[in-house]
């Protein structure tokens, strides 16, 4: 017998309080406000001050950002015309492998399958150790050129995917434009969070105001003002320090972030229109060496610990972004996880004040996402020829997740990718990283032996040359961005 459907207005969540000032809050407000029905009121509490820790999102967004941004009301023309955001084909890792060549961790469309075999097995079959020449995004990144992938699937560039390089303040501001009406925005400092058992009953502000809601969303960063730092149970933690700054740069740099290893840790350069963003991550003991490598006077500096909460959603409070977990911005993991946190909450907006089902499912997905993303980061420390130093010793000494052991073991055994459900980083990401890290597969997919060798040699060579030829025709990143912006401006002028 069909059960009675709840009246939508009975015992449902009617008021969501989102606390935070930086990127996490901006993205959460924009996304959630566009999804909730009219009877759900949103209040956004912004704290005073800056969000220095937003630099720890790394300044690089994966291709997944495109769809997220559309959901949150930011389209690509807005991104390009109203911020200094630039394009990204991936990350260039330098000096990561001792004497081995560096590599571009490129964003890549699904690998082609030839005669029933994933194409990279033909590289393994031939003992080839560099996948880069067969990745159009990697080649374009190295040459500092960019163009949008064409729709024609026969064009080599159609296999490239791209993301963005961004400056947190400028990128976050985009989400505040065109926010739906009806959001109450307040500014104030939280002095106390009143609790009733596991649930939050109110948020007390410095000026005496008391805010009450049905659902509290903590986007306050690593301090986790609502979810509570004292209740944290970070897993996989590592204490590190960061310094960040920006320096003028013209013309626009390449369409990739560069991560360079040093004894102290690593430095990153991210390129946005008009500036290069410097980020250095280091062990506390190596501050001087880190400062020297950083290259410019730091505008921000601080400490952070990596790891994630045992439960991001507890009672009526859900933590997003760095309030939930902090990943080292060595890969796009931090920003990708923030996006997934927001998307996850949007799909699990509570149907009633009893949020246990949503809480359980959110935490299950959250734990899987963070655990799997951390595998991708941790994998960058597994292998020979890593630099010596406090930072590297600590990274190597961290307990290794058994899933990572299986992934590396199977790749090195037979070139096989071990996958878990809905991982943040997919097969292509992992295979490119394995090649880049110098991992060698002892075996390969033997079905590849069915294809006549000479024919496949020609096919591989044709692919490599087609990519090289396509890259030679592409414009410099800066010129492309400028021309694209001009085109968009003309389009918006023609439409107005």
């Amino acid at each position, binding site marked *: *017998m*069909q*059960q*009675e*459907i*709840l009246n*939508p207005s009975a015992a*449902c*969540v009617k008021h969501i309080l989102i606390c935070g000032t930086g990127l996490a809050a901006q993205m959460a407000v924009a996304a959630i406000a566009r*999804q*909730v*029905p*009219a*009877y*759900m009121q949103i209040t956004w509490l912004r704290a005073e001050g800056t969000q220095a820790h937003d630099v720890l999102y790394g300044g690089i967004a994966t291709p997944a950002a495109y769809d997220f941004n559309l959901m949150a009301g930011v389209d690509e023309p807005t991104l390009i015309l109203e911020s200094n955001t630039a394009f990204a084909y991936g990350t260039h890792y330098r000096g990561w492998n001792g004497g081995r060549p560096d590599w571009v961790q490129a964003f890549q469309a699904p690998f082609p399958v030839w005669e029933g075999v994933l194409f990279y097995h033909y590289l393994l079959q031939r003992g080839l150790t560099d996948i880069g020449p067969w990745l159009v995004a990697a080649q374009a990144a190295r040459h500092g050129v960019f163009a949008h992938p064409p729709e024609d699937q026969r064009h080599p560039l159609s296999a490239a995917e791209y993301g963005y390089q961004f400056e947190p303040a400028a990128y976050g501001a985009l989400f505040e434009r065109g926010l739906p009406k009806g959001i109450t925005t307040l500014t104030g400092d939280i002095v106390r969070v009143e609790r009733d058992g596991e649930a939050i009953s109110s948020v007390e502000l410095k000026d005496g105001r008391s805010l009450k809601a049905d659902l509290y969303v903590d986007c306050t960063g690593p301090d986790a003002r609502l979810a509570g730092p004292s209740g944290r149970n970070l897993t996989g933690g590592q204490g590190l320090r960061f310094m960040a700054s920006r320096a003028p740069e013209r013309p626009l740099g390449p369409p990739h972030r560069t991560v360079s290893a040093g004894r102290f840790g690593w430095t990153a350069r991210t390129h946005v229109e008009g500036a290069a963003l410097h980020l250095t991550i280091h062990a506390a003991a190596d501050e001087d060496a880190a400062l020297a490598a950083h290259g410019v006077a730091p505008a921000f500096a601080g400490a952070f610990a990596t790891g994630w909460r045992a439960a991001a959603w507890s009672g009526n409070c859900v933590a997003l972004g760095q309030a939930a977990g902090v990943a080292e911005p060595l890969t796009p993991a931090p920003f990708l996880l923030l996006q997934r946190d927001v998307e996850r909450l*949007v*799909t*699990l*907006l*509570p*149907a*009633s004040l009893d949020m246990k*089902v*949503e809480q*359980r*499912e959110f935490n*299950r997905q959250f734990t899987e996402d963070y655990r799997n993303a951390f595998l991708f980061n941790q994998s960058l420390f597994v292998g020979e020829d890593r630099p010596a130093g406090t930072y590297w010793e600590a990274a190597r000494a961290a307990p290794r997740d058994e899933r990572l052991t*299986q992934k590396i*073991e*199977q790749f090195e*055994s*037979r070139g*096989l990718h*071990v*996958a878990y*459900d*809905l991982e943040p980083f997919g097969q292509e990401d992992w295979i490119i990283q394995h090649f880049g890290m110098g991992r060698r597969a002892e*075996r390969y*997919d*033997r*079905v590849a032996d069915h294809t006549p060798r000479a024919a496949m040699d020609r096919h591989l060579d044709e692919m490599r040359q087609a990519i090289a030829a396509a890259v030679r025709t592409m414009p410099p990143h800066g010129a492309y961005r400028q021309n694209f912006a001009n085109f968009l401006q003309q389009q918006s002028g023609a439409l107005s």
Partner: protein
Amino acid sequence: TSIHLIQEGITELIQILPDRRFLESDRAEYNRRMALNFERVRDFLVLHYIATERTDTELWRYMRALALPESLEEKMAAWLTRGHLIRYEFGVFLPPSWVAVMLGQNLWPRGYDPRVDRLPEHELVAQAEAIRTGVQRAVAAAPDHAAYIKQSGAASMTAPHVAKAG
């Protein structure tokens, strides 16, 4: 389901075909993949039985009293609370199959995703009606099953096709 599991086993074995060393890592990965497959198929199959109101035979009484796997309990709780389907990447049954079995077993959600309330009810009704009408038209236009097989070149309506020896 059985045929799928055979196919899955063959596909995984081809992917993880061992060499003479019979590495433990190969065994472990094959077993992990197949165990996941079996667990998810198990949940789907058990779901066909557990919402029953029947008590007329030992089978049905057994099913009513069955302790459910935690994974299935979570799926059902999410569905019954808000019509939410817990999704996985690896598993043969896609969300529409789960919806069909849940509703077919009379497991109706008590609540729903609040995002639905963004749409005016008349729009929801119109869209649902359009889907229903589209399905009815497509079904009405589809040929009879037996006729379709025959026109597709079935050898015979009566005699089974037996490969000739030699």
